[in-house]
């Protein structure tokens, strides 16, 4: 069997005495959507941060497409095909939606030591950016300042920026967090259209979203992955149920199961 697209082995990351990642092994196959769930403070964002290169692990290795990328920083990983959305929306607020996405296209189009031509007049940047905006449903909002978009639109914009880099791997940290139910449904629909075409690591609290999107689920508790499996296997796993006992998620879960 070919090597997985992404392989993390023995990732450890501590903040003082707190072990936010405790010997994590994780892999993602090409085209797979692998969800990471777990209670608040379990270390999901910390894990994503180490994959994206924003955080450096204390120990462990990360291989991507056959290459050891552990020592690469975020920009270098991005150029190899990592794209990330942040739990707290991270966009260029002073720029229009189209500018935001065009910048992502530009970042992917080689170096930016081009000093004379106006970037906003370059069709090679603007056209692909427009297409991606259309794709995520923001086509009509292209000219709006990102700061003036609704919260849900900003989250869509962030996903659009990630896609515009032409990624081989999408790291999504709670893409539907804080969205209304209509908005979040649209986002889930959109992500399900990416399924299979795009390799995705999805961190999400919304169990409906997770169970409808994920091919596999890993459960992270206190920095450890306590289980990995198909949605059915995870549902049936006793450890997982125990870890969640008393948590809101238990309810959401039961709810998701009933559907």
């Amino acid at each position, binding site marked *: 069997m070919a090597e997985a697209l992404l392989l993390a082995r023995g990732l450890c990351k501590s903040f003082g005495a707190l072990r936010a990642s405790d010997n994590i092994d994780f892999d993602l196959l090409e085209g797979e959507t692998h969800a990471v769930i777990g209670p608040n403070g379990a270390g999901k964002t910390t894990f994503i941060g180490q994959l994206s290169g*924003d955080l450096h692990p204390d120990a462990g290795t990360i291989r991507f497409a056959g290459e050891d990328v552990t020592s690469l920083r*975020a920009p270098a990983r991005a150029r190899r095909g990592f794209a990330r959305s942040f739990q707290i929306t991270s966009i*260029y*607020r002073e720029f229009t939606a189209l500018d935001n996405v065009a910048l992502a296209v530009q970042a992917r189009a080689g170096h930016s030591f081009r000093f*004379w031509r106006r970037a*906003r007049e370059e069709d090679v940047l603007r056209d692909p950016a427009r297409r991606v905006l259309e794709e995520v449903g923001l086509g009509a909002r292209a000219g709006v300042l990102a700061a003036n978009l609704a919260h849900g639109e900003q989250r869509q914009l962030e996903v659009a920026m990630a896609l515009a880099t032409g990624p081989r791997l999408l790291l999504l940290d709670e893409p539907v967090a804080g969205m209304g139910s209509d908005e979040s449904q649209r986002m889930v629909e959109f992500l399900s259209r990416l399924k299979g075409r795009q390799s995705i690591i999805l961190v999400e609290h919304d169990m409906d979203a997770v169970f409808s999107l994920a091919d596999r689920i890993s459960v992270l508790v206190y920095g450890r992955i306590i289980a990995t499996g198909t949605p059915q296997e995870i549902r049936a796993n006793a450890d997982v149920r125990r870890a969640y006992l008393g948590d809101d998620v238990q309810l959401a879960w039961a709810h998701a199961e009933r559907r």
Partner: protein
Amino acid sequence: MRSRARKLVLLAMLALLVLVPPAAALLHQLFYVDLLRRVMIFGIAAVSLDLILGYGGMVSFGHAAYLGVGAYAVTVLAYYGIHDGLLQWAVAIGGSMLVALAIGAVSIRTSGIYFIMITLAFTQMLYYLGISLDVFGGDNGMRLPERSQFFGLINLNNGTEFYYLVLTILAAVVLLVQRLVESRFGMAIRAAKSNEARSRAIGFSPYPYKLAAFVISGGICGLAGALLVNHTAYLTPDFMQWTRSGEILFMVILGGVGTTAGPVLGAFTLLVLEDVLSGWTEHWQIILGPLLVLAVLFAKRGLAGLLPGGRGG
């Protein structure tokens, strides 16, 4: 239409500046040519600072360093009998870019107050270096032996010719910076200023772009230094004093951060007010200070923000 309005304002400013020498001659007030030439030279320095401050978010509190490097380059070469302006100014620009490369390489790894302090510290070092160079007059400085020469094409001893040369350079610098900040390069540094984490996540390493902007800015300011020493015909280490850096910074803030040409208005306001007030009273700084504070408080986007089209990015 904003950009159209802005273009008109810029052209109007340019036309006014073109008319200064004939108007001054008509009124027998040639001294205005001198004053406005000084304004434009500082305008060039302020525009160069706005490139990194307004678009790159880098608050350099040491831009006087490049004025100094540019001025020393011209004077030292002239001292050794080299008066060719092209060569002098090329050395002024190149030298400033090298110094900016060194200062930027260290300072751009930091941000906020550390960035400010490091740029200030480097400039102080250069200032004391200037003071200690006894060959070139040390603390007192020295007269520029001869103004830069351009094969007899332009005579800098002729106040009006020199004026139009400075005006041409100012216009070219404003045009250059405007193009720069709208190019891919400009978008990359503006993006890093807006949200560095986002930039890194889409694959921009901000450092090389910021450093390049810092070096370009230093080069432009070095050219202003070469002009300034030709303007004063006298070199002193004071060109590099930290208060000078503060003045340039103030011109940018007063004129409008991130407005490209706004800082020229800032330079104009600061230097003309200074000139007028110092004619009234020797305690002019007591009046100037509060006036400037008011201006900054009430014109949030600087003076440029008050003009039609001035808010355009």
